[in-house]
């Protein structure tokens, strides 16, 4: 037999909890602001010159990184227009505020097996092109010496960190996969 008295007590308690959670508590808001101010006031633990910001992004199961200063913009789900007669690795072109940029499929550039290509595009500053990747995760501040160069590494891998983050160099990738397109880009 259910204890109806206890059931009623539990119902009243949950009702009260819900009211408290929904009503803004002045003390709680003040505590949050104070903690944030303290965190922002704390000087950086390490010299900023020693670390570099990296954008970590996922492509299928792997996590890759690119230095933040090489990037121009991150766009989720852009509308890419396929180009007829283009190399297989070229996903298409993107109209970015009136400017046309080529978008390369990073999975095909890395010669990964056929599969999901991802729906985010990272726009690079130099050269001005887009890379189709998986989801962009977060900004990481890392020291370049944390990356180690593995044996028999392909030329586009600068290094691999302790938590299997691969630092990519886009230039050799483009040269090995599509020299014709780079030539074309130079003429333009």
């Amino acid at each position, binding site marked *: 037999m259910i204890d109806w008295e206890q059931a009623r007590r539990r119902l009243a308690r949950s009702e009260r909890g819900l009211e408290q959670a929904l009503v803004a508590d002045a003390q709680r808001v003040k505590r949050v602001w104070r903690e*944030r101010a303290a965190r922002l006031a704390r000087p950086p633990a390490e010299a900023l010159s020693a670390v570099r910001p990296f954008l970590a992004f996922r492509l299928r199961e792997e996590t890759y990184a690119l230095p*933040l200063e090489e*990037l121009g913009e991150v766009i989720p789900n852009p509308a890419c227009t396929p180009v007829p007669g283009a190399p297989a690795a070229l996903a298409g072109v993107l109209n970015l505020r009136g400017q046309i940029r080529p978008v390369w499929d990073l999975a095909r550039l890395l010669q990964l097996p056929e599969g999901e290509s991802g729906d985010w595009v990272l726009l690079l500053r130099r050269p001005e092109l887009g890379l189709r990747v998986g989801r962009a995760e*977060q*900004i990481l501040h890392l020291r370049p010496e944390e990356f180690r160069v593995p044996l028999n590494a392909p030329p586009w891998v600068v290094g691999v960190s302790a938590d299997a983050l691969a630092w990519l160099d886009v230039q050799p990738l483009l040269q090995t996969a599509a020299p014709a397109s780079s030539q074309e880009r130079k003429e333009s």
Partner: protein
Amino acid sequence: MNLRIGTRILLGFGAMVALTLGLGWYVLAKQAEVRNHTAQIETRDLRALDELRQIIQGQYHMRALRETAVAQTLLGKSHQSEDPLLLQDRWRQSYEQTRKLLADLEATAEEYEKHPTSTQRALQWGRIRQSGAEAHATLKELAAEVEIGLALLARTDLAQMAARAPVLSRLRQNFETKVMAVTLLAQEQIDIGRAEVAALHDQTRTATLIALAAAVLLGTLCALAIQRSITRPLATFMQFVERVGQGDLTQQAPVDRRDELGDLARSLNQMVAGLKDVAGQTLAGTENLSAATAEILASTQQQGASTTEQAAAVQQTTATMAEIAQSGAQISERAKQVAASTEATSAATQAGLQAVQNTTRTMEAIREQAEAVAENVVALSEKTQAVGEIIATVNDIAEQSHLLALNAAIEAAAAGEQGRSFSVVANEIKNLADQSKEATVQVRSILGDIQKGINSSVMLTEEAVKRSESGRQQADVTDRTIRQLADSIQQSVQAFQQIAAGANQQQIGFDQVTQAVRNIGQASDQSANGTRQLEKAAANLNALSQQLRKAVERYRM
């Protein structure tokens, strides 16, 4: 020795008979020889003696005639007397006769000399013949002298006659002497013949004795041979039979003979084979008998045990029957009590029926309330859907904030040293966006739990409604059951009354059964006694079969 014994005995007897026959024939032959010999000798000797006697008579006759003639002459012719010439003729006749007899004697002697019975007698016959011849010659001289004397007489010349008388006398005496010598020789011959006959007789007797001895010896040897040829194998067979008698059946009598003993050996072997067969069958039969008696003994013992158990069971049955009789009485009593209490139960069923109808109504109310609860819970679920939509909006906002923060950070990085503060702000915005996103994830999870709880509540309520429906149906069933129960209680009252009556009859039957079981107990006691005797007999039979087995095992096969 392939001759049969009968043949052998016949041969032996035949040999004895042949010996006896030969001996008899020999003796008879010898006797005939002796008799012939004797007869010959007697015939010949008697003939010679007879001739001699006639010769002597002839001589006497001649003398008588001559002297008669002389006397007549001397007396003159006064007397009426015979004619002298006639007398002379008569004398001459007598002389001729005597001379002829002598010649005959000579011839006979010569003939016998040529065909003698023995050498000695041949010599004697020779001597007789010579003496006869001398007598013959003397007779001729005498005759010549007599002729002269007769001639003188006729002339009556007496002087001359007297002168010549001595010559005549001397011749006559000479002749007589000669004849006497012949006679003596003949008598000697007779003696010789007698001696010969006696010798021949002796010889025959000796030969007969020798032949008899030889026959006896031969017969004895024959009998010994036959006896040996029969008794030796018989001794072997006696030993064989003795061993068989001692139980040794492994031997074989020798069957290499073809006579009756061979037949006997074959018969003995057949007999031993038959004995072996019989002994083997007897042994097998004895073993079967032994096994059977052992089984009989075992089963008799089992029977004895089971009879004992039966007696025990009968006693138990008697006791049980007594208990049953007692409990039958109790049953009768109880049946009466139950009939009384069933009356009370019949009243209680009416109250039960009322309670079941109340239950049916309560179940119906429960079902209605549970359906109301289900309605409320479904409305609650629709509220959670609205909350979910709000959460989705918050999530979109968080996602856009995240993107915005990333691009802001990129711009700040591009701005270099000037963008450093902006980069911090961008990072802060990104953190807030991440926290918002985590919060929406938590709320979404809680909303899922709430939805699951609502679903299970609706299902539980549905189940409660079904159960209440089922309870109502059960109550209907109970209603019917109680009505049937009331009917059957009524029947039970009657049945218990019948039981009470039946128990009384049962009591009577139990008494009879108890008596019958007592009889069975007595019968099983008798059966136990019989089984003990049977067991004893089976044990005796077993011992007998063991003895029989020992007796048969005496045979070696």
